């Protein structure tokens, strides 16, 4: 049986369509993926992300352990700041993609729900002088995303969260409850992710939902989260990458800091040419309203040239979009087709991300 977040009863009471994801019963949508998606692009949306895992690393060896586990460089990461990274195995394949937070006591690594037990086991095997606490069940994670997220969270937070920089967080209170409020997200919009005790999740959810209503905020499910993240060109572990994908082959080479010294997977990654990775990760725009799906073949000049990793209809742009892992030798101007259940749909290669918000809006 799938696990439940502390907000499960609220989702069911609100009439959400529930779906199993990462071992949890999660809301797919409350009303309509389209309406929820548009709410986040124009006003705001509230997400329950309590399925995500949180792993705390502390101790004298914590920094060295994190440096060894992650491809990105945390030496410059100050308390109150966060960083996106991947975690690789010895072969350079991606174990998971994570966000790491630095606080005075150590590091908090946020992992994908489906990877939690794998990641915890992997980390334990690669620690030195470091204590690991799996806080995934003790912590709930809520996100407020959208151009009006600052106004909404301002109403209920004890400090001025509008001054928090992107990829930084502040320890404060929200609705009278202790919360780490982080200016991060997975939608391509401004917004916050709030880490609270699981016991307090319900009251924080209620106060955010009530406050957000007059700002046009809607509760949003994983359906909208997926269409939003794909428009923003953000990767989904298990779909766009896995244990056999190196970071260069999925366009995440920027998270690999070979100059920082030795880390897990470094020697395998050094053997690769970042400019000529084994596979190339590209964006595709589809003609018409056809929708490419994960696993569809990409065809170039009648030959198999790759595979769609993620695809959806972009509500913001009004056409189908997809990311694909293709033959790196493919010339950028080669006409591409996607085999969608037996019909070939023309696709045009476009830069990632598909959608970029207007800053300062």
């Amino acid at each position, binding site marked *: 049986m799938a696990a439940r977040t502390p907000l499960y009863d609220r989702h069911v009471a609100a009439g959400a*369509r529930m779906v199993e994801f990462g071992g949890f019963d999660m809301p*797919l*949508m409350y009303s*309509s*993926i*389209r309406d929820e998606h548009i709410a986040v692009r124009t006003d705001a949306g509230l997400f329950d992300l309590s399925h995500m895992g949180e792993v705390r690393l502390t101790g004298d060896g914590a920094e060295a352990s994190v440096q060894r586990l992650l491809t990105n460089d945390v030496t410059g990461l100050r308390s109150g700041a966060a960083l996106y990274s991947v975690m690789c195995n010895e072969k350079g394949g991606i174990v998971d993609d994570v966000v790491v937070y630095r606080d005075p006591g150590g590091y908090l690594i946020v992992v994908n729900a489906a990877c939690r037990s794998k990641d915890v086991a992997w980390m334990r095997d690669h620690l030195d002088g470091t204590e690991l606490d799996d806080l995934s069940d003790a912590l709930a994670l809520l996100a407020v995303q959208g151009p009006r997220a600052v106004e909404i969270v301002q109403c209920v937070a004890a400090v001025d969260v509008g001054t928090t920089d992107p990829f930084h967080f502040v320890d404060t209170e929200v609705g009278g409850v202790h919360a780490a409020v982080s200016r991060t997200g997975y939608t391509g919009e401004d917004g916050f992710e709030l880490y609270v005790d699981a016991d307090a999740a319900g009251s924080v959810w209620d106060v955010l939902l009530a406050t957000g209503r007059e700002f046009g905020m809607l509760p949003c499910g994983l*359906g909208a989260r997926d*269409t939003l993240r794909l428009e923003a060109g953000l990767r989904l572990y298990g779909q766009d990458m896995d244990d056999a994908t190196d970071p260069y082959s999925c366009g995440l080479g920027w998270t690999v800091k070979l100059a920082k010294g030795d880390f897990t997977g470094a020697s395998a990654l050094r053997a690769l040419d970042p400019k000529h990775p084994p596979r190339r990760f590209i964006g595709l725009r589809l003609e*018409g*309203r*056809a*929708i490419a*799906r994960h696993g569809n073949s990409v065809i170039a000049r009648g030959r198999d040239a790759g595979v769609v990793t993620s695809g*959806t*209809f972009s509500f913001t742009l009004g056409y189908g979009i997809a990311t694909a892992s293709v033959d790196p030798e493919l010339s950028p101007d080669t006409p591409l087709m996607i085999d969608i*259940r037996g019909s070939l749909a023309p696709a045009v290669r476009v830069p990632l991300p598909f959608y970029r918000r207007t800053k300062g809006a």
Partner: protein
Amino acid sequence: MADLSAYRFTATHEWVLLDDGRATVGITDNAQSQLGDVIFVELPAAGTVVKAGAKFGAIESVKAASDLYAPVSGTVSQVNDALSAQPELVNREPYAGGWMIRLDGVSEGGVELLDEAAYEASTAG
């Protein structure tokens, strides 16, 4: 709620409205609700002969693609062109503006057609 007493339903969640040898076909409210936001409806051209129980088109939602099956046999006389610009009509008005095809020369057979109560019973629980 629309008056569906004249509608007949299939186990594959299409509806058909029969009228003197002609028929209008769409998908049920339950079907559109399960699919979620409809993005694209692939329909046959006018003049296409469809056979009861056979695939006549496909429907894509954000979540999934599904095939559409003809409740009755006949020849496509009209296609709901509004759906190419507004596929969301299938979600908003599954029994009215979200209709998909009209058929001439209709014959039944091969597909069990349920009345509203029997269809509702089949989808309950």
